[in-house]
């Protein structure tokens, strides 16, 4: 039995998460793990690197039930594609402030290559296929964030087709 069989793989929560604790849990009981790669997404206060700041709040909405099913399926796909030993995804919902953590993807494997790849694969998959929606509050008011064609392109690198952003502004 691996860690993945015993621990939750997907958690949707409003509370913050502890990266170190999650990484530790991913490999503590499996001495075959030699690498853990993790990604943390945080709330930006601007749309683009050169844009002026101005986002004071970000609200995250999700589709309860479907979100968990979708991410569980992504982790199954990662296990099929990559030689990994465990994966963990935490995604926050509700109201967040700039610089707060939004999402964690962590992957454990025997060697680093598979962990790096599977971590990126899971993030690319999540960006275009998991039912979350961001709404930003700026001095001009609150606005839903547009999907990015670049995120569909990122998933295409893995041979998977996404049309999430099709028909929206680039």
């Amino acid at each position: 039995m691996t860690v993945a069989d015993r621990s939750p793989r997907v958690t949707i929560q409003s509370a913050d998460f502890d990266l170190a604790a999650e990484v530790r849990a991913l490999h503590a009981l499996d001495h075959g793990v030699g690498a853990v790669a993790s990604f943390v997404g945080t709330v930006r206060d601007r749309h683009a690197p050169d844009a002026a700041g101005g986002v004071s709040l970000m609200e995250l909405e999700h589709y309860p039930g479907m979100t968990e099913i979708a991410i569980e399926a992504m982790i199954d796909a990662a296990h099929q594609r990559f030689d990994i030993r465990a994966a963990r995804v935490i995604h926050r919902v509700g109201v967040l402030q700039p610089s707060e953590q939004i999402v964690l993807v962590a992957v454990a494997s025997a060697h680093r290559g598979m962990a790096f790849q599977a971590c990126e694969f899971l993030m690319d998959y999540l960006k275009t296929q998991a039912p979350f929606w961001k709404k930003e509050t700026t001095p001009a008011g609150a606005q839903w964030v547009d999907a990015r064609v670049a995120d569909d392109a990122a998933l295409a690198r893995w041979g998977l087709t996404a049309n999430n952003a099709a028909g929206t502004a680039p």
Partner: protein
Amino acid sequence: MTVHVRYFAALREALGAGETLDIAPGTTLAALRDALVARGGRHAEVLARTRAVRCALNQSMSDETAVVGEGAEVAFFPPVTGG
């Protein structure tokens, strides 16, 4: 037959959290969307064919050719923006 429709994000703000509908057997997601658009008003606006709207059938991303079964849960929402 009865199906449950849910809306999320901007669609939820415009149309509410969802509704229960009575539809004919064999109805596709596309036909269901068209029927909602045909109501006019906010439905016509936010579900218009010119808008990017995604859908799920029984909590799985779906294209609109899928046929909606008895008791199904259908969801319409904007392109996703998590992560």
